[in-house]
C-alpha cells in the first residue's frame, strides 16, 4: 500500500506538471539533457556522461523520493545524494547489448555551471563483438512532459545521435543497419 501511495503521489506531481505548454517564454527553461555514451574497448565498458540541469534533477528527486538534497549548495547532503541519484538512474537508464542487460554502475557526479554531470559505467560481462545496442534514457521525462534527451553514441568508429523523449525513450543501434 505504501508503495502504491508513493507511486500515486509521484504520478500526481508528474501529471500536474505535465500540462501541455502553449506558451514558451522569452527566456524560459528548455527541458533538455545531453548524454554521451562511448564504448571503451580496453575497459570493455560503455561509459556515459549525462548533463542535466541541477534544478531539474533536484525537482525529479524531490518528487519521486521526497528528499531535499541541496545539490551544489553548502548544505548538500553528499552521501544521500549519491545513493538517491544511483536509485534514480537505475530506474531511468538501462542498456542492453546484444539483447543482454548490462548492469549499471553509478560512478559519481560533478557540476559544471548550472548543470550536473552524471557518470555511469556499464561493464560488459563478456567481450563478444557488439551487434546491437539498446539504450533507454527516461531521465526527467517522469517530471517534464517536454523533456528532450539528446544522446550521442560512439561504438568503435561508429557514431549515431538521437533525441529521446517520453514517447520515444529508447535508442537502438544495430551493426546490420549500417
Amino acid at each position: 500500500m505504501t508503495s502504491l501511495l508513493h507511486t500515486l503521489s509521484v504520478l500526481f506531481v508528474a501529471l500536474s506538471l505535465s500540462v501541455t505548454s502553449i506558451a514558451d517564454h522569452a527566456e524560459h527553461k528548455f527541458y533538455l539533457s545531453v548524454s554521451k555514451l562511448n564504448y571503451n574497448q580496453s575497459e570493455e565498458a560503455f561509459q556515459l556522461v549525462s548533463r542535466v540541469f541541477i534544478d531539474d534533477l533536484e525537482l525529479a528527486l524531490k518528487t519521486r523520493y521526497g528528499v531535499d538534497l541541496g545539490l551544489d549548495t553548502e548544505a548538500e547532503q553528499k552521501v544521500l545524494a549519491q545513493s538517491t541519484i544511483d536509485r534514480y538512474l537505475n530506474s531511468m537508464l538501462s542498456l542492453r547489448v546484444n539483447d543482454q542487460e548490462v548492469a549499471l554502475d553509478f560512478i559519481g557526479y560533478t557540476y559544471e555551471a548550472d548543470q550536473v554531470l552524471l557518470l555511469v559505467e556499464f561493464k560488459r560481462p563478456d567481450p563478444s563483438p557488439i551487434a546491437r545496442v539498446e539504450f533507454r534514457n527516461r531521465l526527467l521525462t517522469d517530471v517534464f512532459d517536454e523533456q528532450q534527451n539528446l544522446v550521442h553514441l560512439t561504438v568503435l568508429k561508429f557514431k549515431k545521435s538521437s533525441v529521446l523523449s517520453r514517447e520515444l525513450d529508447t535508442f537502438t543501434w544495430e551493426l546490420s543497419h549500417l
Partner: protein
Amino acid sequence: MKHLFAWFASAFVLFSAGLTAQEEKKEREPGHYNTNKFKQLYEEFATPNTFRSASGAPGPDYYQQQADYVMDIQLDDENARIYGEETITYTNNSPDALEFLWLQLDQNVRAKDSKAPLRNGSGVNLAYTPDNFSQTFMGESFDGGFNIEWVKDARGAALPHVINFTMMRIDLPAPLLSGQTYSFSVKWWYNIPDHTVNRARSGYEYFEEDGNRAYVIAQFFPRMAVYSDVEGWQNHQFWGSGEFALPFGNYDVSITVPEDHVLDATGELLNRKQVFSKEMMSRYEKAKKSYDEPVMIVTQEEAEAAEKSFAKKTKTWKFRAENVRDYAFASSRKFIWDMMAVKIGNRDVMAVSLYPKEGNPLWEEWSTKAVASTLKSYSSHTFDYPYHKAISVHAKNQGMEYPMICWNYGRPNKDGTYSDRTKFGMMSVIIHEVGHNFFPMIVNSDERQWGWMDEGLDTFMQYLAEQEFGEAYPAAIEGLDKYPSRRGAPSAIVDYMAGDQSYIAPIMSNPENVYQLGPNAYAKPATALNILRETVMGRELFDHAFKTYAQRWMFKHPTPEDFFRTMEDASAVDLDWFWRSWFYTTDYVDIGVSEVKKYYVSDEPTAEMKEYMAANGLTSADLPPLVYLADLDAKETDTEIKAPAEASSTLSEFMLDNMTEAERSQVKQPKYFYEIAFEKPGGIPMPLIVEYAYADGTKEIVSYPAEIWRKNDAEVKRVISSDKELVGITVDPNLETADIDTSNNSWPKAEEGSEFEKLKEAIKQ
C-alpha cells in the same frame, strides 16, 4: 630562349597542378549549377527595392503604419477579471488602400475552443490521476479567451467584424486610403489565468498565505496587427511559440485597480501626485538623484501591511507612452518598489524594480542594479536607451519582455537562503529581458516570423552585458573571476550542432516549427554572432556594423536580410557564406589536419620528376637549372639536413649571380619543408586557424581566411618552410569555431583521455 621560357611556363602549371596528367580519364560527368559555398545569396534574399535598400538600410519609400491607443482598463481583483475599452486611431502610411483591418486577440489562445492545444500530437499517459483525467477528458477547460462586447466606429455605429482564432478582421465601410486615419473602439473583457499553472506569459500568481494575487498583465487588449511591405497583413496566428509583431504608436492609458495596489506600467505616470503618498513623493525625488543605490519607494514593511488591507475602493493610474509597440503593467498590494537613476548619454533614466516579499533578500539587493547595468551595456553597443525608465518585475517562473517593463524569475527559498544558481539565474533573466527593450521593442523585428532576430541578437548582447555586469559589480560574482554566462561560448553549442539532423532546423525557420527553440533561436544565433565578432570579423568591424544595424532600424521594422546586408555594408566583409551555412542550413563545423609530408632541398630530380621526364622524352640536358623538394621519408641516407644554399648548388649559384653578399646574408634559409593537408568533413567553411609548434618550444598561430575553402570544400594543402623543425599542429587551438569533432584536430594525433576518464579521476579526488 623562347623554348626555355615556354618550358618554364608549362613546368609551372605542371607543378602547381600536382601531377594529374597520368590520372585515368573518367567517364564524362554532367554539368551542374553553381553550388559554391561562397556564392552570393541572391536566391535566398528578397530582391532589394525602394522600401528596403540593398545596403540593408530603409529605402526611400520605406513606410510603417501607426496605431495610437486610448484605453480605460479595470482590474477586478476579486474575480480575477480584466475589462477594457479602447479607441484605436490607425494611420495608413502605406501606399495601399486597406479594405479591412486585422487585430490580434492573443488571449484567444486560451479560449475554450482554442486550437492551440490540438496542434501537437500526444500519446496516452502511463496513468492519470482522477484530477488530471477529468481535466483532460471530462471537464470544462479554463475559459481565458477574449469576450468582445462591441466594435464601434467613431460615431458609435457598430462595425462588422469576424474573429478567426487569435485574430479579428474589422470590415471598413470604405477602403482606408494611403495617408488616411481611421478611429474605432472595442469593448472587451476576459478571465485572467493563473500563469503559474499553465506557463502563460501573463496572468496572476496567487499567494495562499496572505490571499493576495500579484498580476503581470500583457497582450491583454485587442492589438493592431502589422501591415508591411514584406508581409501585407501579418497573418500568422498566435499558436504559443511565435511571439509578437506590432506597430509603433502612442498610448494614453488609465488603469483602475484596488486603491491599496502598487502599480507600474509602460509609459510616463501622469498623475503621480494623486496616486503617491507624500512620503512616496519625497522618496521618489530622492531616487531621481541616487545613481549608486536604489531608493525604496514602498518598503517591505509597508508592503506587508498592505497585504492585509483588501481595499474595496479603487484608484486610477494614468500613463502616457510615446512611440512604443506594446503595453503592459504589473499590479499588486504585495509589491515592494525601489528605483535608482542611471545616466545614459546626457539623460537620466530610472531603473525600477517591483517584487513581492517572496523575492527578498535577493531582489532588493540586485534587481535594480542589474537593470541599470544592462541599460548602460546595451546602449554602448546600439543607441542610447530612449525611454525614461526600465522596470523589472518579479513573477514566479516568468521571463517575458514588454516596452519599459518585464517579468523575471528567481526566487529564494522560504527561509531567505538561495543558491548561486538562483542568483545568477535571476540576474541573467533580468539582463536578458531588460535587453529586449532594444531587440525587439525598439529594433522592432517580426517575432511571429523570426524568433531568432530578437532572441538571438538579445542573447548575444546578454553575454556581453553579463560580463560587464560582473565587472561593474564584483560583489555580485563574489568568489568567481567572471560572470558565469550560460550561452555564447562556441564550445557550448557543439552538442546541439552535432545532434541528429532529423531533429535540427535551420535558424531561418519559424519558431513554431523547430524542435528545440532554445538552441535554435537563442543559443545558436548568439554563438554565431559571437564567432563573427571574435574570429571572423574582429571586434572593431563587427561592433561598428552591429551598431549601424541597430541605429538604422531603431523604431522601425527590419527583416533578416536588412540585418545580413547591413553587417556586410558597414564592414566590407562579404559574409554571404557565413549567413548561408550558419543561418540557412543545419551544417556544422568540422575541420582537421589529415596528413603531413616532410621535404628537403635537393639538386637531384625527384622520383616523380624522373617519371615525368621519361614520359615526355626529356633528359637532364633538356632542363634548365632547377631546385627540388624531395620527400624526406623516402630519403635513403640519414645525412644531416642542410640549408637550401648548401644543399643545392643550383640555388647557391643563382644567389651568387643575383644577390650581393649583403643581400645573401639577409635571406631566409629554411631547412624544413612540410606539405600539410587539412580536411573539412563539416559543411561550414570557417577560417582555418592553425597552431604550429616547433622543436625549440616556440609556437605560432596562423589564421587562413575562410575563403581558403572556396575552390575545394573538402581538402586544402599548405606548404610550410621553417628553419626550425615542426613538431606539432593543432587546428582551432582555442576552440573558437564550434568544431564538433576535435579528434582530427591535431598532428601527431593526440591520445587524450576520454572525457569520462578525466571526470572519473576528478570525482575520485
